[in-house]
């Protein structure tokens, strides 16, 4: 048992990684599903244990292959890592049972083992990015997760899923190549690939052109992956045309992990002094984030396809996260990291609900949702719950992140930014209200076929996430506490 607990940082990555080819070998769809379910739940349990251990013991360091860092690859887990691991594995383990009954499963049928292999590889890649302490290893895991997500998105029923996946492939690969150029330039400047070691070896005062170039490439590459305005073009198409299961999983994890990459490099590797005091990073990030918040929310109001609307809403929410990072205070960073967690819960719940609606009604158009409130009461109630959290109504998780963001803005004396945050949240009311109005206040069209409530196996995972939204809106010790610890570690105050 002791050996098991000691090697947990490796096992959390290895078990889904082994489960993926196992799924390919055991071709039956039920075998593949069982293997995937067990692997994702195992990773979630490991992530919970790692969170508990990191908050009591401090940084966990695991040497891969027995080679000590900085010679070898090191898995280094501190509070930020553990938090992101918890988010990714949690969403992965909620979406896995959901996928069994979803339309996607019926679509792929006998080739379900391929879907689960791609799903497990995507999960492995995302968790690997979160856990590793080596810069190039981060790039490798990032590409593993990106390639699997291109495959997953291309499984959509609409033929536009193929072009959406292709566009995401081109832009994502350019982003990842920028990141690898940055890592190469950092290696040239410092001679090491271990992130903690790079941070130590970078010159404390002054900077030379190599490091500034590396910084530039990294921020742009990460921004492409995060879908920060104006590099967000791939996201609306990719999330709108992908299957709902895949949208739920990717919307709740892929961009969060890319935000983690940005935070890790800005604060730990380059350091606060280089990133924000020597180089003027804070203001451009803040401006882009605010534009994202307003522009994306406004565009979302005009969308008729609910999935596309939620995709644009995601771009706006990413703006909130980056806004929190650009404040460069403990409060701001804490708000950004808390929003990572809350947005994963919100968007995961909303996309899962949309999948259930699509399963019954066959379309996610606002017109087709007319009268759905009466025909599918539990499903639409879940949508209302997720929507309220998205707006930021008190007692939901969304309110917590907006609250801390506004506090961080007022703490820096920027009351203007606080007003902007509130204003953009009000725009979210408009697009959520459009869906609610169609579902509850209009009646179903005459010739519409009678639809029943969505099956239980689709409703339960969606409700799990909605209840989690409300729970973490009331009992905020876990997300806010961990975010505070992470922010303090990153900013270097204890």
């Amino acid at each position, binding site marked *: 048992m002791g050996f098991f607990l000691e090697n947990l940082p490796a096992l959390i990555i290895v078990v889904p990684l082994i489960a993926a080819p196992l799924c390919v070998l055991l071709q039956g769809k039920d075998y593949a599903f069982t293997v995937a379910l067990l692997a994702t739940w195992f990773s979630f349990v490991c992530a919970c244990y790692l969170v508990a251990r990191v908050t009591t013991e401090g940084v966990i360091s695991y040497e891969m292959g027995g080679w000590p860092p900085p010679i070898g690859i090191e898995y280094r887990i501190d509070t930020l890592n553990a938090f992101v691991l918890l988010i990714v594995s949690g969403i992965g383990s909620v979406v896995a049972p959901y996928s069994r009954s979803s339309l996607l499963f019926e679509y792929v049928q006998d080739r379900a083992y391929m879907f689960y292999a791609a799903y497990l590889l995507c999960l492995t890649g995302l968790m690997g990015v979160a856990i590793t302490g080596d810069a*190039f290893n981060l790039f490798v895991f990032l590409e593993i997760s990106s*390639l699997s997500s*291109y495959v997953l998105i291309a499984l959509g029923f609409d033929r536009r899923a193929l072009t959406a996946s*292709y566009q995401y*492939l081109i832009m994502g690969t*350019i982003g990842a190549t920028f990141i690898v150029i940055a890592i*190469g330039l950092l290696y040239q400047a410092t001679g090491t690939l271990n992130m903690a070691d790079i941070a130590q070896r970078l010159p404390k005062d002054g900077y030379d052109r190599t490091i500034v170039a590396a910084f530039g490439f990294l921020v742009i590459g990460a921004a492409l992956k995060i879908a920060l305005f104006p590099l967000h073009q791939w996201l609306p198409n990719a999330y709108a045309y992908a299957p709902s299961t895949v949208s739920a999983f990717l919307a709740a994890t892929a961009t969060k992990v890319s935000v983690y990459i940005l935070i890790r490099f800005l604060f730990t590797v380059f350091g606060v002094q280089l990133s924000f005091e020597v180089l003027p990073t804070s203001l451009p990030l803040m401006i882009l984030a605010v534009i994202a918040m307003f522009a994306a929310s406004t565009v979302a109001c005009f969308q008729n396809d609910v999935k596309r609307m939620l995709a644009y809403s995601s771009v706006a929410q990413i703006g909130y996260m980056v806004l929190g990072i650009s404040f460069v205070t403990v409060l701001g960073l804490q708000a950004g990291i808390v929003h990572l967690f809350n947005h994963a819960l919100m968007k995961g719940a909303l996309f899962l609900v949309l999948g259930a609606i699509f399963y019954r009604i066959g379309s996610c158009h606002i017109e087709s949702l007319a009268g759905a409130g009466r025909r599918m009461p539990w499903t639409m109630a879940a949508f209302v719950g997720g929507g309220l959290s998205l707006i930021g109504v008190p007692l939901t998780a969304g309110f917590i992140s907006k609250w801390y963001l506004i506090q961080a803005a007022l703490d820096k004396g920027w009351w203007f930014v606080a007003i902007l945050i509130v204003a953009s949240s009000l725009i979210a009311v408009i697009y959520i209200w459009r869906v609610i109005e169609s579902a509850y206040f209009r009646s179903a069209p005459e010739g519409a076929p009678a639809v029943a409530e969505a099956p239980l196996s689709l409703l339960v995972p969606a409700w799990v996430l909605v209840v989690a939204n409300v729970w973490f809106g009331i009992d905020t010790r876990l997300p806010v506490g961990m975010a505070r610890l992470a922010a303090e570690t990153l900013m270097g105050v204890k």
Partner: protein
Amino acid sequence: MIDFVGLYNYWIVIVLAMAGMYIVIARGNLIKKLVGLNVFQASVFVLYISFGKIFGGTAPILEKGIETYSNPLPHVLILTAIVVGVATTALGLALVVRIRKEYGTIEEEDIHIQDESM
């Protein structure tokens, strides 16, 4: 001046990177975009290999009597990056084959026209 010209491999990196990115942005044919992506990634490979060379160093294979070796680590990083590039290209080409089957064309403008008219 010698330094300027002697750094010719970095100039090649810049030319390849810019050419690759230009092809990705300016060309509408889906396969040409993938080719541009490959050229861009090739520039990254040349960049990494340039890091590894040490003046007076030989290939990093252990031999008696040789003192200075080139750094083998960038070579390993490049192998990994090449594999990633190959996988991306294979995936991109598979997507192009499917797009051709669904849309009947691989020109970006024609696909856009077909999508708009839906």
